[in-house]
């Protein structure tokens, strides 16, 4: 059974059709990658899935439920977490605080319990911390636990963002260009982590990526887009060799 399904997804900004009739299925446990030239609508699809944009047409189905009209802040609680292309961390907070915010979807305290810091609030805070520490351990972030984000190098921030998404305990993880701005070594690390996230944590990954070595290393299925329309779908190799894809990237 497919975990996530986009049916005939479309969005228009004025006269521009940013995404136009895109359909795909992501199976449980898959790494599904969307590629395409700049402006192809990859990130727009992500923003549609995380409900920042309202789809003009089409349907999003997650875990058997229609999420096309679910408010954006409920997406995390349903089990979809994401990272951003340009890193949207909380810069003036520590790594730990960033990751704890990732636990927000699992908040079980009400305002009064927090205001008075009742024993229940303390107990749940400790639970959150434990969940966060598991992620820190998983992604080797121990040295940075108390550092402020502004003081961290770009490569580490990228990992922290993945960690924050993992703290929500997602079923589906959306990674928007996980390797952008990383050097070769860091990109390799990222590839290993994506494989671990899939195999050890059992999380399905939907990814937008340009680096074809990373794409071929981790993806089970690849969808190529251009001008918001699907060009080809299949394994990384099939898509790379597809004549339309070659044409879109290299011209005639």
């Amino acid at each position, binding site marked *: 059974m497919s975990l996530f399904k986009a049916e005939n997804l479309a969005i228009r900004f004025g006269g521009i059709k940013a995404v136009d009739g895109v359909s795909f299925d992501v199976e449980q446990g898959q790494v599904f990658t969307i590629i395409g030239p700049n402006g192809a609508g990859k990130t727009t699809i992500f923003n549609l899935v995380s409900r920042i944009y309202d789809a003009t047409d089409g349907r999003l189905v997650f875990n058997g439920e229609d999420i096309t009209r679910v408010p954006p*802040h409920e997406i995390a609680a349903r089990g979809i977490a*994401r990272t951003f292309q340009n890193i*949207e961390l909380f*810069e*003036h907070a520590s790594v730990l605080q960033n990751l704890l915010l990732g636990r927000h979807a699992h908040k079980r305290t009400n305002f009064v319990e927090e205001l008075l810091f009742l024993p229940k609030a303390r107990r749940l805070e400790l639970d959150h911390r434990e969940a966060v520490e598991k992620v820190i351990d998983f992604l080797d972030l121990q040295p940075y636990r108390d550092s402020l984000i502004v003081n961290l190098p770009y490569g580490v921030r990228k990992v922290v963002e993945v960690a924050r998404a993992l703290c929500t305990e997602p079923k589906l993880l959306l990674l928007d260009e996980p390797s952008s701005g990383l050097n070769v070594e860091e990109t390799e690390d990222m590839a290993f982590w994506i494989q671990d996230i899939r195999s050890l944590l059992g999380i399905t990954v939907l990814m937008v990526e340009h680096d074809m070595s990373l794409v071929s290393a981790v993806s089970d299925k690849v969808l190529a887009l251009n001008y918001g329309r699907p060009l080809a779908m299949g394994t990384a190799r099939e898509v790379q060799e597809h004549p339309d894809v070659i044409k879109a990237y290299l011209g005639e």
Partner: protein
Amino acid sequence: MRFIFKTDYAQDLRLFRDEVQRNWYWALLVGLLVLPVLVPDYLIDISLVFIYGLCGLSLMVLAGFTGLVSLGHAAFLGIGAYAHVFFTQDLHLPWLLSVVLSAAITAGAGVVVGLPALRMTGIYLTIATLAFALIIQEVLTHWDGFTNGLLGKAVEKPVIFGYRVGTDLEFYFLCMIFLGGGLWLTRNLLRTPTGRAWVAIRDSEIAAQSMGVNLALYKTIAFAYSAALMGVAGALFSHQIKFLAPDIFNILLSIQFLLMVVVGGLGSLHGAVFGAIFVAMLPVMISEARDTVPVWFGHVFALFGAGDAVQAAVDRFVKQPGLEPGIFGLILVLFILFEPLGIYGRWVKIKVYFSLFPLYKRATFKRQKSYMKSERLR
């Protein structure tokens, strides 16, 4: 240099970092208990520091932690003050109940202001709160039946559970307790999901939303909580100034509150208190200086045989009516230029200097130029 070993997750949930820090706060408490003996003439001024501390806390929650800058907080103070006086003197409700009700009413007003705020950001929100403040001031001026208009209203001494808080000393402790309570409650919120959600909204709304933060809800909570603190401060403020008139709660007071959090240091509870000390004590200092500074100048220049002339000139200068706002403005500009982190930022630097002594590096706090700015989604 001190290194803190962390062996337990609960360690990060404590109010104080370690024994040493806790002992410093005990020392501070003892200092505050002894202070009235040292400066008995200034108790009412120091009470104002505590009340302004609550105001600073209120605006810090909104501007410093949630990133919603308000220029209308004097209006909340006014609503709290008038409501409190109405409840205690016209309805004869118990004092504590009246404070709670005033807080509830200002919280309600906060929600009303906060609702349009959900659609506005940055400067537009600030303008909207400014408009709100002006409206409230007009209402306070013209709603004679409730506020007694421009004639004002005398405020009686607080009576708590039959105990009359008659002296300045008792009022000093009353305000101190309220500020301590406000700090504790706010600190609690900041170490639990609500506070983290506020900080998340400040730093990146889009990421906060994707992590499950309901932006509308948490912005409204921030407004309501901030306004409620202002309401409590207003109740105490009414007793501090002893006489309510609508023109007290003017735009300048709102600006002073904003000044407080910026000079104190945005984004820290310490900053709210430092800012309050600064803003509440500066006028006292200036009025002291008015009397003493010309005399000093006179003494110094007497050596050159021009004592009386210089003293008269300096005296004329310090008695200029616009001196106080001028100095406020100057200090604000200097802070923004040289210490954007405010008094708290300077405080942290001094602390780090001594804890690393003699290995302090200036570069530790050097602001890094960032070459990549992300395009935030709106």
